[in-house]
């Protein structure tokens, strides 16, 4: 089976991001492969355990190379990097990526469920639309038999199980797997793997349709919610509910 993994480079979860002249300034920030994309890379390597026929596809600036090397060091076979530092809206990105999918003819495309930097969840859906393929979003479990895919994915009120035929776009969700560390021998081997470079012009695109006017850092205010502790059981239940439903941390 041939698998494409879309990957992005985003600020590390602990990176301090600042705004400069009305735009986010990533100078000096630690960047890393988006954790949601990493689930896709890991899943591809669990399907094709020797890494054969697995391709990382990245659309972004020169600094994306770190994320590409990470995906190759985890075990993907080769990479395609469409290098552009322009801001591209998701629909334009999907058009370019769809052309790569048509060139490569994979059976499966993995895409991170949500971008760690912009919080956008649209890329997988936009790509499926551009390809006119089926998609499974927020996937937490996956089983493939011949051309049939059984998947469990998150929906608003719980989980849903689906059975679909390949080809598919699958977007990832936390819990799909536990990504591996790139081992040191694989880091060294990744140096020799192919990274094919391309430009927007190669895909007939001049730029995006959305222009970023201004970005600012959001200051999160504390909610200062107090729970009445007279009934400890009820208080604990309320706390768990708030942490689960509102804060979404458990």
């Amino acid at each position, binding site marked *: 089976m041939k698998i494409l993994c879309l990957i992005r480079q985003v600020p590390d979860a602990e990176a301090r991001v600042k705004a400069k002249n009305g735009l986010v300034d990533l100078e000096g920030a630690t960047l890393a492969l988006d954790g949601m994309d990493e689930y896709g890379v890991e899943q591809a390597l669990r399907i094709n355990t020797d890494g054969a026929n697995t391709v990382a596809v990245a659309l972004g600036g020169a600094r994306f190379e*770190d994320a590409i090397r990470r995906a190759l060091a985890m075990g993907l076979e080769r990479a395609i990097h469409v290098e552009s530092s322009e801001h591209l809206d998701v629909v334009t990105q999907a058009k370019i990526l769809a052309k790569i999918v048509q060139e490569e003819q994979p059976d499966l495309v993995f895409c991170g469920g949500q971008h760690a930097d912009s919080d956008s969840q649209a890329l997988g859906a936009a790509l499926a639309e551009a390809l006119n393929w089926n998609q499974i979003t927020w996937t937490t479990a996956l089983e493939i038999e011949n051309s049939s895919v059984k998947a469990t994915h998150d929906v608003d009120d719980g989980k849903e199980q689906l059975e679909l035929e390949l080809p598919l776009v699958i977007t990832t969700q936390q819990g799909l797997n536990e990504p591996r*560390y790139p081992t*040191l*021998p694989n880091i060294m081997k*990744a*140096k020799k793997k192919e990274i094919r470079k391309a430009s927007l012009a190669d895909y007939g695109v001049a730029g995006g349709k959305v222009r970023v006017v201004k970005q600012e850092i959001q200051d999160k205010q504390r909610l200062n919610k107090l729970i009445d502790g007279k009934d400890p059981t009820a208080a604990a239940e309320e706390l768990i509910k708030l942490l689960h439903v509102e804060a979404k941390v458990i």
Partner: protein
Amino acid sequence: MFDYFKILENLKPEERDIHTMVREFVDAEIIPQVGDWWDEGTLPRNLTTKMGELGILGPTTPEEYGGSGVSSTAYGLICYELERGDSGIRSTASVQGSLVMYPIYAYGSEEQKKKYLPELAAGRMVGCFGLTESDGGSDPGAMRTRATKDGTDYVLNGSKMWITNSPIADIAVVWAKDDDGIIRGFIVPTDTRGFSAPKIKNKMSLRASVTGEIVLEDVRVPASSLLPGSKGLKSPLGCLTQARYGIAWGALGALESVLSTTLEYTKSRTTFGKPIAGRQLVQHKLVTMATQHSLGLMMAYHLGQNKDAGTMNYAQVSMAKRNNVRVALEGARMARELHGGNGITTEYPIIRHMLNLETVDTYEGTHDIHTLIVGRDLTGLNALE
């Protein structure tokens, strides 16, 4: 990483990737648990296997023998990150890579290299290094352990002290004087009759690392156990140069840990209505720690560049080990002071690093011995003997 002078930007991409991977591993798999291991005085055996699976044991060893042939700078960064977790864990990796795999690679036969190096690199086999004896580690040439030729075999007798990993090791690289009084190295499987390795108990330092003796009572090994290329004191000392190189990087990892913990602590701890980090005396200590870390890192970085270029000499290694461990120890003591009472509990990593560094300052050549090695190199006059 605390990298005030942006040393990391000079690294090759794969060196940065190796550093990132090991840092993530230490954050996820070591730091959350090492305090408990230290308190209990244990180190899980499977940690060595995990390090082997990641390929960080003896990583400079060529690929054909199970290593990855990485640069010395990458090896230094691995030591840095492991010791940011705990000096005992870095010690385990140092012993395996620099003191067991290195002598087998440098002085061993092709058969020995093929038999042992891949197993050691994968962490399936644990090794230890028996040089120091109880009469004093600073004068290894005065060792009493003997290897007597008997037919085609050697019979080893003697004892070794302060041996990292000896109670859990599968093989020991043992140094002994032959019938001509020449120091030779032997690979001794620890299940050989007459070999025992009692554990040293009640350590208040490097508790997340197993230390023992080696007792050799008529231990008979075939001639094929001899490391054929080993001859004279320079052979074990060559191994120590490798290990000391890793320590010069590693100690700075411990210094980063105490510095970053102290920065957080002093910014949140208030006295008289103000964080103590806003006090001049506190800032002086923080700046001293940060400056010493930066100076030490520049020295370690250049040492690595020289090592890979083949221009490093042992006196440079002595200077870097001597300086970087001492500034880390002094930094840990300052951090301990700034943490007040919290600095004496293992709830914080401070006292653990401080006590560990007391050992690191002593082993692999004491601070004073390195002073005399560098002193001899500078003056041409030997104050060691």
